[in-house]
């Protein structure tokens, strides 16, 4: 006993004032969901910058006819790495990072269900990212051909066979994505189990914040849709290393089967990517309209039905491949069906704003822009879902314009809304509002300039992924216009980075609840302590913080 007592009486060891190695050790060895969430988001932002630079080079190459900014092989690598990075190393870690940071805070939990699995997921994901980028160094392999992968982000067979993809670059593509996928699945299982098993007392499913609902269904999509990609990639590895015949047409294999398997993953994947934006909008719009979200059950139902319908629409990426007319009809119809729940969501967000007391702070501006731009992206999606229309515009710049409108004008706008909205919670300080507005206006002008002309280029017949074009095609003006959007996007991004970094150090102290919000993460300090909440919160309604602030008119009276 006495030895224990003497240990307790011993004064704590003086800590060094600031030691880089201590800090590094703390971050590398952490299992705290907030730190891991931040690491995911910072990694995603870094990869976003890398892939953004690639996009800049691609646009410079296409700015003028007969361009020679890079050589054709480099161009192929650029669009492959740009697409792969954006989907797997930017979109996926944003999903994991946002849900890691926010889900436990929003449901009043101390941490995720499996903190160590969480750390494993992050590090294996990062390793996958490094593996993909290591191809720039090691991709030549022993045969000395090829560097980074150049097979496109969906890597169609038979281009990926040994005969057409020599060297090891395609193997780095397969292994990097396979390994990063393990991390995504680990993190998705963690989010699902956390949501099911770790909610604080009183937090029933009907009171759970919309953000958590959307991320729950997002994670469900990940664990269903990602394994098909892993399976197809394992088959491709068998083909490439063991001489298998899965996608080898000379032995009776089918190249189309790869397309099916890839898009069984690939189409749910685009919903996996856009869901964080849905989740963020469903939190930000009510707070900045001073109204609870309109039609909450319909909202949850819409997200859940997207979570199921999107599993059955994959072959709309393959209308031009020559399927039976019955398949074409089925996939046209099922794709149109997704328009219904998506429409419900747009209507409900708009109805939330209708009659509300709107505060046009930066997060809300991004949300409003999202509504308009995502609507246009959805409408071009309905156009492309029509088989005969798709035959005309398949693999054209119209498709490029469509999915960049969903992912940049949609997802990225949603992400910026979320980053600005939760910045005071994460850093404890307020960002600079006027810089935020500058960022918004420059960025929206740049995005419209870059991506609207792509639709017209598609109508004019410009195929995607071409290296360059002749001056007499009538594409010069629109291409130059698309590239000129960079003049606005680049400074906007720099302003954003400066705003985040500078405000995190020197910004005004924000306080616990700068937005007068209603969900649990705003009840704790900014930034939240490692233990999140001093005592386990107990909730009575879907707006627990509203109940505290308005004891005379609490929400639970109406539930």
């Amino acid at each position, binding site marked *: 006993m006495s030895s224990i007592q003497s240990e307790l009486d011993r004064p704590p060891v003086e800590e060094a004032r600031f030691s880089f190695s201590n800090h590094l050790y703390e971050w590398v060895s952490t299992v705290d969901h907030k730190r891991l969430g931040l690491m995911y988001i910072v990694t995603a932002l870094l990869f976003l910058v890398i892939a953004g630079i690639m996009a800049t080079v691609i646009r410079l190459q296409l700015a003028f006819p007969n361009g020679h900014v890079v050589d054709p092989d480099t161009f192929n690598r650029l669009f492959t790495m740009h697409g792969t990075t954006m989907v797997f190393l930017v979109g996926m870690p944003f999903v994991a990072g946002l849900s890691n940071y926010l889900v436990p805070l929003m449901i009043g939990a101390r941490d995720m269900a499996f903190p160590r699995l969480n750390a494993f997921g992050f590090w294996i994901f990062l390793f996958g990212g490094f593996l993909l980028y290591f191809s720039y160094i090691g991709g030549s392999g022993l045969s000395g051909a090829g560097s980074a992968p150049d097979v496109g982000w969906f890597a169609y067979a038979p281009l990926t066979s040994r005969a057409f993809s020599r060297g090891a670059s395609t193997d780095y593509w397969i292994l990097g994505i396979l390994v990063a996928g393990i991390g995504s699945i680990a993190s998705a299982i963690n989010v699902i189990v956390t949501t*099911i098993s770790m909610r604080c007392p009183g937090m029933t499913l009907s009171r759970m914040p919309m953000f958590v609902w959307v991320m729950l269904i997002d994670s469900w999509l990940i664990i269903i849709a*990602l394994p098909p990609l892993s399976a197809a990639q394992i088959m491709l590895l068998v083909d490439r290393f063991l001489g298998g015949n899965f996608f080898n047409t000379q032995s*009776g294999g089918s190249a189309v089967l790869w397309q099916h398997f890839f898009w069984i993953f690939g189409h749910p994947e685009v919903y996996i990517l856009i869901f964080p934006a849905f989740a963020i909008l469903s939190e930000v719009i009510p707070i900045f309209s001073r109204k609870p979200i309109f039609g909450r059950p319909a909202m949850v139902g819409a997200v859940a039905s997207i979570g199921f319908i999107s599993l059955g629409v994959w072959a709309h990426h393959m209308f031009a491949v020559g399927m039976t007319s019955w398949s074409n009809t089925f996939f046209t119809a099922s794709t149109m069906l997704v328009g219904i729940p998506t429409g419900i969501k747009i209507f409900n967000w708009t109805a939330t704003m209708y009659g509300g007391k709107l505060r046009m702070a930066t997060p809300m501006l991004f949300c409003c822009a999202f509504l308009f731009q995502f609507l246009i992206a959805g409408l071009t999606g309905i156009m492309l879902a029509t088989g005969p229309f798709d035959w005309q515009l398949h693999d054209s710049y119209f498709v490029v314009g469509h999915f960049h409108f969903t992912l940049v004008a949609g997802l990225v706008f949603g992400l910026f809304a979320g980053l600005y909205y939760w910045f005071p919670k994460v850093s404890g300080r307020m960002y600079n509002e006027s810089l935020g507005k500058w960022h918004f206006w420059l960025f929206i002008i740049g995005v419209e300039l870059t991506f609207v002309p792509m639709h017209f280029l598609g109508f004019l017949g410009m195929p995607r992924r071409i290296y360059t074009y002749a001056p007499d095609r009538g594409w010069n003006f629109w291409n130059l216009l698309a590239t000129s959007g960079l003049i606005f996007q680049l400074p906007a991004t720099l302003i954003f980075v400066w705003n985040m970094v500078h405000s995190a150090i020197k910004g005004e102290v924000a306080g616990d609840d700068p937005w007068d919000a209603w969900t649990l993460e705003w009840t704790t300090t900014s930034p939240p302590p490692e233990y999140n909440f001093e005592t386990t919160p107990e909730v009575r309604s879907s707006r627990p913080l509203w109940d505290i602030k308005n004891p005379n008119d609490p929400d639970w009276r109406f539930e």
Partner: protein
Amino acid sequence: MDAVLTGSAPPRKEEWALPDRGTMGIIFLIVTETALFTIFVVAYVVYIGKSLSGPFPKDVLDLPIVASICLLSSSATIVFAEMALKKHRLGLFKLWWLATILLGLEFLISTGLEWQKLIYEDHLTVSTNLFGTTFYSLVGLHASHVIVGMAFLILVMLVTLFGFPIETQERRVKFLSWYWHFVDAVWVVVFTVVYVIGR
């Protein structure tokens, strides 16, 4: 904070109980593994009868009756082991656990012998034809899951033999048993597709 958050709300009547996180974790692991296997099974079914050259399944495949009986009955023995553990009858637990391991081992050995025959006598390898590619991939993916299960089964056996109080880990034994049931259920599908429909 408790009092602050609830304000003047009436006290909660119902007990707050949520599902166990380990149980949920293993369930969703099985869900995601099912998605993985589904694609391999689909690939196998799509390529049935598409091989351009022999050997063909009907010429070289024999029904692995004994191995299948062994693997499926190991699902029963592991349940008996669990029940013994629940009653704290450790000797009985070890016995049933050992039986499970031996049955799983017999399955792996007979798969190995089958592959040896296919490779050396029938000259069917993963690169011979579509049947070889899909057969070795699907059966191999399943066998690799059996091996992972075996590794954990043996781990539990070893720590128990070295005196670790396994009765404190009833939950984890249950999760391992669920995984083992899953591997067995997959074998039912693989057996049906490869040896019944595919032949």
